[in-house]
């Protein structure tokens, strides 16, 4: 059974600046600035290919990055909930 499917604005709606351990995201439609850490920029990047649930995002991330996907789905689902709360993703 699939999880909640999320979508995000296209990359043009964001300005991403990588600082140290953290990244800055300026969200153009809302005018809000967010200070985020991994894997948030990667999740948004994975959603460029289209709406996805946490499991599909893990699959996309595993294809693009070198990491062990064991247990990653729960982490990604939690981050998606946070991203939904700040308006960077929404339910498709």
């Amino acid at each position, binding site marked *: 059974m699939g999880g909640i499917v999320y979508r995000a604005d296209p990359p043009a709606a964001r*300005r991403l*600046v990588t*600082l*140290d*351990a*953290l990244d*800055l995201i*300026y969200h*153009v439609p809302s*005018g809000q*600035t967010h*200070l985020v850490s991994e894997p948030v920029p990667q999740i948004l990047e994975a959603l460029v290919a289209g709406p996805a649930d946490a499991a599909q995002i893990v699959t996309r991330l595993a294809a693009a990055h070198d990491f062990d996907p064991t247990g990653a789905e729960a982490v990604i689902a939690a981050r998606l909930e946070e991203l939904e709360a700040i308006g960077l993703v929404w339910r498709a």
Partner: protein
Amino acid sequence: MRHHFSVRIGPVGFRIGSAWPGPIQTLRTLYADYPAPADGIADFTVRLEPGRPWRRFIRPAVEIRGDFTLPDAAPLPLAQGLLAAEMGMNLQMALGQRRYLLLHASAVERDGRALLMTGNSGAGKSTLSALLGERGWRFMGDEFALLDPATGLLHAFPRMVSLKNQAIAAMEAEAPPERFGPLLRDTPKGDIRHLRPSAAAVAAMDAPAAPALILFPRFGFAADERTVAPSEAFVRLTQASTNYVALGEAGFASLSGLVTTVPSFAIDYPDTASAVTQVERLWAEAAP
């Protein structure tokens, strides 16, 4: 208004109107070296008025008004009219400035490059900038630094330095008496005395400078310092900016550009002498 005075401080023109002559006379003296607003047009207006008509004469109380007002700002006694004018000018800048990213920071310049200092009230950024201004640096401002989103350059806003409490004596030892305003006792901020920036600082106020070092000073602690990561500097500078949100993407681009290109340090200092030593050493090391 019965009495008025116009002045340009850095790129910003002000017109200050007053129901009383006193504050205007003091402003004229303290800002004698400053030009009038460009084309005679002020960016911001400050009005010092009595809350009720009779308050012009009976226990005169100054209310600060202007293009932008705070409804709950308490009136000040007329003897503190100069402070009211200064608070009014700060208020207009804090609420109305849209051309520059406004940083609540002091700044000094050397060799065309700027040192920015920001911190909470009492951290010593104002005193430090005034002191450095007497010790070979060009004073750019003790309250606001103006970052131009178009160029990334810092513009000076060298208004009168507002010295508080023990900083008054410290600076009286540094600068000649004719550069000081009247001593204002028992204001809401304690004792205050204004110091006019040097004539050289005023003459050079139109020259912007490239930011080269950011410091977060803290007065009253054993001498110490640590590197501040760009992300922390970014957060602290957004907190120190009154118009970051209003500037939108331009504000984001200029502030993120600033913290990624300019090193930041937090410094603790027990007294101004060691602060100057720390600043000079960090400047030599981090902004060569």
